[in-house]
């Protein structure tokens, strides 16, 4: 049962203790980011920390002076922070939802990408929540939401839904990580106390495997409705008010579609970076990028369908309050945002991804970056225009332009997310080792067997002598 393990000539791989856990010899490359740290890592960390420090300074200024240091005012009470909140919560759909769906349908190509997707969810959701807290005028009173919480407020629905989602997606990231942590505990020397604690005594017995797979498959199913609910209630924050172009029944599904859309795009960018930085071309192959690109392409059309429905309904209904906002977006002060959004969410990605020759990794990355810019703009022109031209007063509205504080905090959010992601890759394998091992060992046979069940039983004539078509 136990294979003999050679001491790796490179530092950090001792001989294995006795257990059922297979050494990651074939996938030693996946441990390299954890075992070796070069100067590039430190340079990256320092740069990211510098940006984070700027954001911290900006927030300290805001905490001291009040929200007056932002570009917000009356009537645009919400701006960048709420946009960031919606955007980051949207990105968080990348992981859990895609990973869960691929697991449930038994898509074998998922094995190397699920981990990197799930990490995005957990890390980015922190910044979604963080931006709501940054937006509060009195962050010192945030516990009032618990002490005096009123369930009739859609913000409370968000609090409940996001808390459940964060807990579940963290669990859903952690469960498939346990066997890999055990590998790290048994075959590496770094941070052993951490891995010993997190491995929860995993020894890889068949019973443990059964329990783990059961838990993962239950979580994969349960997490889907939770993920859908999260972005639905985020949209409800807007849709439940009676403000023009917010009060729309389409907002729930529209936000969910937009979330999956930007989530896939974020995943493609993250995977391309991992592949490039850690040289993991063997694991994150063209096939993965091609499949994800096709998913992104489908979501482009879904996004276009929802956006078209939303704007056509408003236009045809022709209600004055709604039309004021409509024209602000189509030809008014927010027209640049709107048309760049249409280009980056639909025209450019569709042009790139429809063509097999441009649907390369580079093409997918360009399309994905475009989509994420477009989706940020989409969130922005959902939040701001509806506020900047309220029903009353009819006076000319005050335009909103974010100040250095808001820009710095946005930059710091991206930097902090990247930093957390990088640190994760330095502590845990970003491609699931045990799932790749399992794929090599069992999947080929399983998939062959499964394929056979798809096909009808071949017809076997009773009388071999009789030619086909002849009447008996």
């Amino acid at each position, binding site marked *: 049962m136990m294979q003999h393990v050679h001491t790796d000539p490179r530092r950090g791989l001792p001989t294995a203790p006795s257990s059922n856990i297979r050494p990651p010899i074939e996938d030693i490359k996946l441990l390299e980011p954890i075992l070796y740290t070069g100067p590039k890592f430190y340079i990256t960390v320092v740069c990211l920390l510098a940006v984070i420090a700027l954001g911290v300074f900006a927030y300290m200024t805001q905490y001291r002076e009040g929200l007056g240091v932002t570009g917000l*005012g009356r009537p645009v009470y919400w701006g960048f922070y709420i946009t960031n909140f919606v955007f980051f919560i949207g990105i968080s759909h990348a992981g859990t939802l895609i990973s869960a769906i691929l697991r449930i349908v038994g898509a074998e190509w998922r094995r190397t990408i699920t981990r990197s997707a799930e990490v995005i969810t957990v890390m980015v959701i922190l910044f979604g929540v963080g931006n709501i807290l940054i937006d509060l005028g009195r962050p010192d*009173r945030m516990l009032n939401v618990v002490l005096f919480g009123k369930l009739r407020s859609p913000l409370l629905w968000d609090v409940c839904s996001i808390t459940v989602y964060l807990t579940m997606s963290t669990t859903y990231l952690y469960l498939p990580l346990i066997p890999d942590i055990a590998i790290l505990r048994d075959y590496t020397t770094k941070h052993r106390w951490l891995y010993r604690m997190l491995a929860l005594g995993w020894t890889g017995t068949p019973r443990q495997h059964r329990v783990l797979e059961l838990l993962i498959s239950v979580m994969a199913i349960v997490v889907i409705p939770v993920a859908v609910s999260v972005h639905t209630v985020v949209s409800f924050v807007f849709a439940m008010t009676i403000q023009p172009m917010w009060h729309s029944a389409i907002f729930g599904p529209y936000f969910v579609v937009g979330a999956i859309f930007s989530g896939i795009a974020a995943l493609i960018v993250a995977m391309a970076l991992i592949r490039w930085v850690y040289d993991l071309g063997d694991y994150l192959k063209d096939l993965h990028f091609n499949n994800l690109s096709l998913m992104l392409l489908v979501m482009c059309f879904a996004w276009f369908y929802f956006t078209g429905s939303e704007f056509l309904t408003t236009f045809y209904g022709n209600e004055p309050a709604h039309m004021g906002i409509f024209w602000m977006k189509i030809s008014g002060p927010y027209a640049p945002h709107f048309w760049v959004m249409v280009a980056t969410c639909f025209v450019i990605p569709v042009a790139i991804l429809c063509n097999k020759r441009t649907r390369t990794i580079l093409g997918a990355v360009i399309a994905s970056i475009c989509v994420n810019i477009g989706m940020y703009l989409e969130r922005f022109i959902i939040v701001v225009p509806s506020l900047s031209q309220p*029903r009353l007063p009819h006076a000319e509205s*005050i335009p909103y332009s974010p100040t250095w504080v808001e820009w710095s905090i946005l930059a710091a959010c991206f930097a902090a997310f990247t930093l957390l992601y990088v640190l994760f890759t330095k502590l845990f394998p970003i491609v699931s080792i045990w799932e790749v091992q399992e794929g090599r060992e069992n999947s080929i046979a399983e998939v062959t067997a499964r394929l056979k069940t798809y096909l009808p039983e071949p017809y076997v004539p009773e009388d071999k002598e009789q030619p086909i078509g002849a009447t008996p």
Partner: protein
Amino acid sequence: MAKWGMVIDLDRCTACQGCVTACQAENNLPPTGAVEADRGRNYTWMEMIPFSGEGEHPKPIERLLPRPCLHCDNPPCVKVCPVGATFKNEEGIVGQIFSRCIGCRYCTTACPYTARYFNWSTPKWPAPMSDHLNPDVSIRPKGVVEKCTLCHHRLQNARDQARAENRPLRSGEYVTACAEACPAGAMVFGDMSNPESEVSKLAHSRRAFKLLEDLGTDPKVIYLREGD
């Protein structure tokens, strides 16, 4: 139980802004200065808003309309508050608990009349003004939402007085600062639930209308259109 409300007769209103000033003095609204006002940070619980609801196309009538908080009977701001910092009391006044508000500004975005204000910074008064603040009205800290309270402190004072003299509250004893200051007598304040009160009679006048009535917010500040 009284239902406090106000009728504003646009036929009498001269748009002198006496109500605006009276409100600012009464309720300790800080002056913000030109720069901040330009960024939409001034405090005008009572505000003159441009209103063009009347007149036909070739000759629309443009006018200014005094707009306090309308104290909706179905207030969109109250239901969205996540901590119950804004509420409608049993007498119909929509109030704000400054010490509970977390400053999320959901109520300010939900109000279709944009009648709620946020404290973008710690309020400051220049030297002579700072000695003349109204001791009955609390100073709001930075980071919380504030709004017209229908001069609720005046109701409390009037009640205390009535209680001290061991008699019920008389009609006309509780009047908001804006209504009291109006030189044209365009603002009538009182108990809407009493059919004999002046405000109640005016509210049923043929000239009466409510702002953005089709939204179903059911304001208790009612306007009388011009031209009888």
